[in-house]
C-alpha cells in the first residue's frame, strides 16, 4: 500500500476493484465505514455481487479480465474533460516530458516488438534528451510530443461505448463510476488478486497508477493505491525477496552475465552499490571485503531465460530437473492453476520436505483419490511446524508496518518455528561441508550465521540483522539516514528498507496508539518501512512552498524557522534539511530516476555522464527506470481463454508477450469458446483461508461454509435445467469438478460484443484432505502468467456446465 488501513478513514471515495475486502480483509470495512459515515462513497467493480458489493453505493458487474477497458475509458474522460489536477501533474509527474519520436503504438503492439522472440526492446520508449542527458520538457500540455498528449491519443479509442461492448458494463454506469470517483478527492483505490491474477495484471495496476497520478491522489491522506496483500505476512515475504528476480529490499538479482560487482552496477545503476554491499556484509560479515568484491560471487546468478515463477517451477519439476523440494507452508496441489501439473510433477522428486501444521493435500499427494502410491518413489519427510501464536517474530502488513509479536504459547509436541528448522538444517549442512576447499562450497562455509543456540534461534537477531549494523563498531545502526550516510562497506543490512527498525530498541514492538492528528497515522505503533514513513510520496501533499494543500489532511510541511521538513508523518524527501525550492526538496518521487511520478513508464537512466568515461570504463548511470516488459502504457488485451475477440485489435487479441506455459500439452490444454462458452472466475471466501489447509480442519469454520459450489445466474440455471442445491459438473479443457449449484441474482447475464455472456463463480479452497474435503477448482483453471510479475491467470478461463 502507498497508504495504510487506518488511513482509509480519510478518503472521500473508494474504488474497490479486484478486491472483495469485506470477505478477504474484513477489518478494512471498519475503516471504510468510518469514511462512509462522514459521507464517503464506495464503488465496487467485480465479476459478481459480493459481500463487499452489498455495502457499495455504486456496483458494476464486469466480465473477468477486462478491467483495463473501462479504466482506459476513465483515463480518456479525465484527460478530455480536464478533470486532472493540473498543478499536480505539472509538478509531480512526467506529463510534460517529451517522448522519443520513434515511440509508436500500432495494430495492437508497441514499437520495439520482435515477433520471433516475442519480446519488446524498449529503446523507443524513451524521452527526448538534452545535451545534459536529462529529459526535454514541453512548454504546454498540448505539445504533441509530451507524455500527456501521448496518453490522450492512446486512450482516445477507449470510449464509454467501446468499454461497454468489451466489459459488459453499461456505458452510463462507466460514466457514473468515472464521475463518482473523479469528483471526490482524495480518492482511494483498493485492489487485490482480482486485479493481479491476470496475464495483464501489472498493466491493470498501472492504469490505477495513471488515474491516481492524474487526479493528484498519490501522497495524500485518504488517497493512494492500496494493494490488499493476500496473506498476513506476504508483504514481509516479498520484502525478503521471495520473488525470483529480487534480493531482499527489492534489489535486482544478479544474472549470469554479472561477473563482477561492477558489471552488476553498470547494469543496475550506481545507486545499488550501497544496498548490495550492505547486504553482502550482512551475509558474509568480515569475509566480505573490497578486495574480493564483497563476496559478490558467492550469490548464485539467475539465468533470465529460465527464470521461474511458481507455475514454471512445476514445469521444470515435471521435466525431472529437481531432486529435492522444500515445501514450507505451501499447498500447491490445491492452489496452483492447472493443478494436474503439480500432481504429476511431485512424483518426479526424489524427496520432498514439508513443514506445515496439518497434513495438507500437498504433504500427502500420493493419497489423492485415483493416484496409485505404488508408482511413486518420492520420499516425503514432514516437519510439524509451529503456528503463528507459537513463535516470536515480525509480521509486515499491507501498510508496510513491521509488527513484532512474541510467542503466546509454546508449540505442541515436536513442532518448531520455521526459523528453528532452517537454522538447525543450515548448521548441520555446514558441518557436512566442513574442511572443504572447493570454491563452490565457500558460500556455505563463509556465511555469517549467528541467530542463537541449537533449536532456539532468535527471531529478534534476524530482525536486527535486517535493520543493520555499523560494521566498524558492531553496534546497531540507529536509522535509515545513518545507513544512507555511511561509506560503502562500513555498514551491513539484511534488507535496507528495514533499516532502523531495531535502531533504538525494537521499534516494531511499540504499541502506543496515540493519534494526535486524528488522521490514523499512529507513528508510535510498530514501525513502517521505510524510516517509519506511513504515507509514501507525502511531499506531494504540499504546494511548491512546501505547505499542506489540504488543511484537514496535513501530513508534512517545511518548517521555515527550523529549516527542516516536519509533520504528522515522516517526510518522504531525499534530505530533510533541503527546502522546497531546492532540487531535492521539489521531488516527491525520489525513487524514480526522473524524480516525478511516471504516467508513461519510459526507459531512462539518471546520472548518465555527458562525456565518455576515461580509460575505456563502461558507462554507469545512477538509477535506471523500472520498466514494464509488456508496454509503457496499459493496453486492453483479452485473457488467454476468452469468449470473444479483442474489439480494439482483433488480430492481436491477447497480450503478445503473455506467457502461456505449454511444455506439457497433454496437461496444459487450451479451450475454445465453441466448446467452453462460459467464463469462470475463482475466488476465496471469508469462511476459509486460501487453499483451506488450516481452515478446513477447524469444525467451527466448516460449519459456516461446509462445501464448495458454483454460483450461476438464474438464466444459466434455467438453461441447464438446474435449481439451487442440484449438483452440477463444471468442465474446462483441463479437467472437471462436480459441486453444488448456487442460483443467484448476484450474477446477471451480460452482453459482450452484443452476445449474451454468462460468468460462473467458484471458490477454490477445497481439496481431498482435511475434515471437510471437496473438489479443487484449480482442476479447471489455466496457468498462463503475467510476463512481468509471474502471477497466474486464475481469475478467468472458459468452462462449460451441465446438471450432474
Amino acid at each position, binding site marked *: 500500500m502507498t497508504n495504510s488501513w487506518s488511513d482509509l478513514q480519510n478518503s472521500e471515495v473508494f474504488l474497490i476493484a479486484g478486491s472483495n475486502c469485506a470477505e478477504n480483509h474484513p477489518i478494512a*470495512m471498519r475503516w471504510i465505514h468510518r469514511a462512509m459515515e462522514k459521507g464517503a462513497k464506495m464503488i465496487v467493480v467485480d465479476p459478481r455481487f459480493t459481500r463487499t458489493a452489498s455495502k457499495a453505493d455504486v456496483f458494476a458487474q464486469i466480465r473477468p479480465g477486462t478491467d483495463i477497458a473501462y479504466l482506459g475509458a476513465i483515463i480518456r474522460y479525465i484527460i478530455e474533460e480536464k478533470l486532472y489536477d493540473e498543478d499536480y501533474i505539472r509538478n509531480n509527474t512526467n506529463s510534460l516530458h517529451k517522448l522519443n519520436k520513434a515511440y509508436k503504438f500500432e495494430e495492437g503492439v508497441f514499437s520495439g516488438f520482435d515477433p520471433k522472440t516475442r519480446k519488446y526492446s524498449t529503446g523507443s520508449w524513451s524521452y527526448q534528451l538534452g545535451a545534459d542527458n536529462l529529459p526535454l520538457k514541453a512548454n504546454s500540455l498540448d505539445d504533441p510530443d509530451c507524455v500527456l498528449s501521448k496518453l490522450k491519443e492512446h486512450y482516445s479509442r477507449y470510449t464509454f461505448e467501446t468499454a461497454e461492448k468489451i466489459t459488459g458494463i453499461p456505458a452510463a454506469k462507466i460514466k457514473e463510476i468515472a464521475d463518482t470517483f473523479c469528483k471526490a478527492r482524495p480518492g482511494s483505490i483498493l485492489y487485490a488478486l482480482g486485479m493481479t491474477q491476470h496475464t495483464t495484471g501489472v498493466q491493470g495496476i498501472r492504469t490505477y497508477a495513471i488515474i491516481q497520478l492524474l487526479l493528484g491522489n498519490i501522497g495524500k491522506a485518504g488517497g493512494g493505491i492500496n494493494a490488499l496483500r493476500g496473506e498476513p505476512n506476504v508483504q514481509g515475504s516479498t520484502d525478503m525477496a521471495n520473488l525470483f528476480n529480487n534480493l531482499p529490499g527489492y534489489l535486482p538479482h544478479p544474472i549470469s552475465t554479472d561477473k563482477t560487482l561492477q558489471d552488476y552496477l553498470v547494469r543496475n545503476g550506481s545507486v545499488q552499490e550501497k544496498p548490495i554491499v550492505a547486504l553482502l556484509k550482512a551475509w558474509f560479515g568480515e569475509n566480505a571485503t573490497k578486495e574480493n568484491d564483497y563476496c559478490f560471487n558467492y550469490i548464485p546468478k539467475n539465468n533470465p531465460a529460465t527464470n521461474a515463477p511458481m507455475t514454471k517451477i512445476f514445469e521444470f519439476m515435471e521435466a525431472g530437473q529437481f531432486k529435492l523440494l522444500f515445501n514450507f507452508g505451501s499447498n500447491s496441489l490445491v492452489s496452483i492453476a492447472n493443478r494436474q501439473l503439480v500432481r504429476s510433477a511431485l512424483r518426479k522428486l526424489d524427496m520432498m520436505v514439508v513443514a506445515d501444521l496439518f497434513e495438507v493435500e500437498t504433504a500427502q499427494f500420493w493419497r489423492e483419490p485415483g493416484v496409485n502410491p505404488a508408482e511413486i518413489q518420492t520420499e516425503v519427510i514432514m516437519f510439524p511446524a509451529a503456528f503463528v501464536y507459537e513463535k516470536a517474530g515480525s509480521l509486515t502488513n499491507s501498510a508496510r508496518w513491521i509488527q513484532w509479536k512474541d510467542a503466546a504459547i509454546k508449540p505442541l509436541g515436536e513442532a518448531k518455528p520455521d526459523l528453528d528448522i532452517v537454522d538447525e538444517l543450515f548448521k548441520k549442512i555446514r558441518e557436512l561441508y566442513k574442511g572443504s576447499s572447493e570454491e563452490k562450497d565457500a558460500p556455505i562455509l563463509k556465511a555469517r550465521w549467528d541467530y542463537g543456540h541449537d533449536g532456539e534461534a532468535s527471531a529478534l537477531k534476524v530482525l536486527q540483522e535486517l535493520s543493520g549494523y555499523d560494521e566498524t563498531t558492531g553496534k546497531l545502526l540507529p536509522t535509515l539516514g545513518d545507513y544512507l550516510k555511511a561509506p560503502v562497506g562500513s555498514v551491513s543490512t539484511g534488507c535496507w528498507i528495514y533499516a532502523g527498525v531495531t535502531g533504538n530498541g525494537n521499534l516494531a514492538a511499540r504499541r502506543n496508539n496515540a493519534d494526535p492528528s486524528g488522521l490514523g497515522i499512529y507513528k508510535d505503533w510498530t514501525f513502517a518501512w521505510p524510516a517509519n514513513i506511513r504515507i509514501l510520496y507525502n511531499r506531494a501533499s504540499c504546494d511548491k512552498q512546501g505547505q499542506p494543500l489540504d488543511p484537514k489532511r496535513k501530513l508534512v510541511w517545511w518548517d521555515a524557522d527550523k529549516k527542516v521538513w516536519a509533520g504528522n508523518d515522516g517526510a518522504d524527501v531525499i534530505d530533510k534539511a533541503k527546502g522546497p525550492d531546492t532540487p531535492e526538496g521539489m521531488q516527491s518521487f525520489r525513487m524514480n530516476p526522473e524524480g516525478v511520478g511516471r504516467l508513461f513508464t519510459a526507459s531512462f537512466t539518471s546520472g548518465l555522464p555527458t562525456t565518455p568515461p576515461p580509460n575505456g570504463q563502461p558507462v554507469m548511470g545512477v538509477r535506471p527506470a523500472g520498466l514494464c516488459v509488456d508496454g509503457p502504457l496499459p493496453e486492453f488485451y483479452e485473457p488467454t481463454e476468452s469468449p470473444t475477440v479483442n474489439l480494439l485489435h482483433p488480430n492481436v487479441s491477447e497480450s503478445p508477450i503473455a506467457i502461456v506455459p505449454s511444455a506439457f500439452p497433454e496437461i496444459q490444454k487450451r479451450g475454445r469458446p465453441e466448446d467452453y462458452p462460459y467464463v469462470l472466475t475463482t475466488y476465496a471466501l*471469508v469462511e476459509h483461508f486460501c487453499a483451506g489447509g488450516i481452515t478446513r480442519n477447524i469444525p467451527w469454520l466448516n460449519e459456516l461454509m461446509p462445501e464448495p459450489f458454483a454460483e450461476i445466474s438464474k438464466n444459466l440455471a434455467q438453461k441447464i435445467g438446474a435449481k439451487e442445491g442440484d449438483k452440477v459438473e463444471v468442465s474446462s479443457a483441463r479437467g472437471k469438478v462436480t459441486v453444488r449449484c448456487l442460483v443467484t441474482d448476484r450474477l446477471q447475464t451480460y452482453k459482450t460484443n452484443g452476445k449474451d455472456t454468462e460468468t460462473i463463480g467458484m471458490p477454490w479452497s477445497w481439496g481431498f484432505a482435511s475434515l471437510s474435503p471437496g473438489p479443487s477448482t484449480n482442476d479447471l483453471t489455466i496457468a498462463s502468467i503475467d510476463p512481468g510479475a509471474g502471477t497466474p491467470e486464475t481469475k478467468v478461463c472458459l468452462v462449460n456446465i451441465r446438471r450432474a
Partner: protein
Amino acid sequence: MSKKMVLVDTSKCTGCKACTVACKEWNELPAEKTQLLTSYQTMKEFTPKTWTYTTFTEKYEYPKMNWYIRKAQCFHCAEPACLKSCSSNAISKTDSGYVVIEQELCIGCGYCVDNCPFGVPKLDNSRKKAYKCTGCIDRVENNLTPACVQTCQPGCLEYGERETLLPQAKKRLSEVQKTHPKARIYGETEMGGTTFVYLLLDAPEVYGLPINPTTPLSLTIWKDIVRPVGGIAVGGAAAAVFVGVFGNVLRGAYREQAQEEKDAQKGGKR
C-alpha cells in the same frame, strides 16, 4: 446495572460470521454438521448448540441488487414470552436487559420454545433443557463486551447504554435512509423493547422477522387472567382441577393457533 443495548446495524454487516465463531468459542459450544441451504446460509434456525447465526436474503430490484444480511440471536425482550410461559420459573430477567434460562431449574417442558415469536429457545432432547443466547451476561457483568460485539469485524455491532445508543441508532437511521428509504429501527418497542435492536434496510418480513411480534394472546390469558382468577374463585383441589383442565384445553387450542399466527407473521420463506 443500567439498561444495556446492542445495536445490530445491518447496513454495516458484511456477513463474515465471526460472531458465530466467537459465541461458540466463548460458550464452548461444538460445531454442527451443516449444508448450504440458500445463498451463503447454513443454519435455518437456532439449535441448542447454535445461539447465533447469519441469514442471507437476496432481493433483486432491477437494476439494483440487494443482499440483506442479518445476525440472528435472542432479542432479550423487555416483555419476554419465554419468561411468561416458563412453567418452572427457570427464566428470569435482569435490570440490565438480559433474559436468562437457569438450566438447573429448567424441566424441559418446551413451553418457551413454543411461545417465542422469534423461535429462539431450543430444547436439547437428550438433556431435557432449553438453551439460547445468554447475551454474554457473564461478560457483561464483568464489564466486558459480549463476545459477538467484541469480534465484529466491520463494526456492525455496538454495545452500550440504551439511553445513549438508541438515539445514536436513530441518528444513524436518518443517514442510512438517504440511500435506503425503507430502512427502519426494529426492537425499540417490539416485545416491550428488546436489548438487541436492529437497523434493518427493509421491512422485517424481508428478513424473515415477524412484522408485529407479540406474546401469544392465549398465553396472556392463561398466565395473567385464568390462572390467578382460577385460584381465587374456586377453592382448593377443585380450583386446581378446573384450572388444569381449562388450561390444557386452552393450550391445546393455542398450539394450532400459535402455529398459524407464526406462519402469518413470519411472512415468507427464508
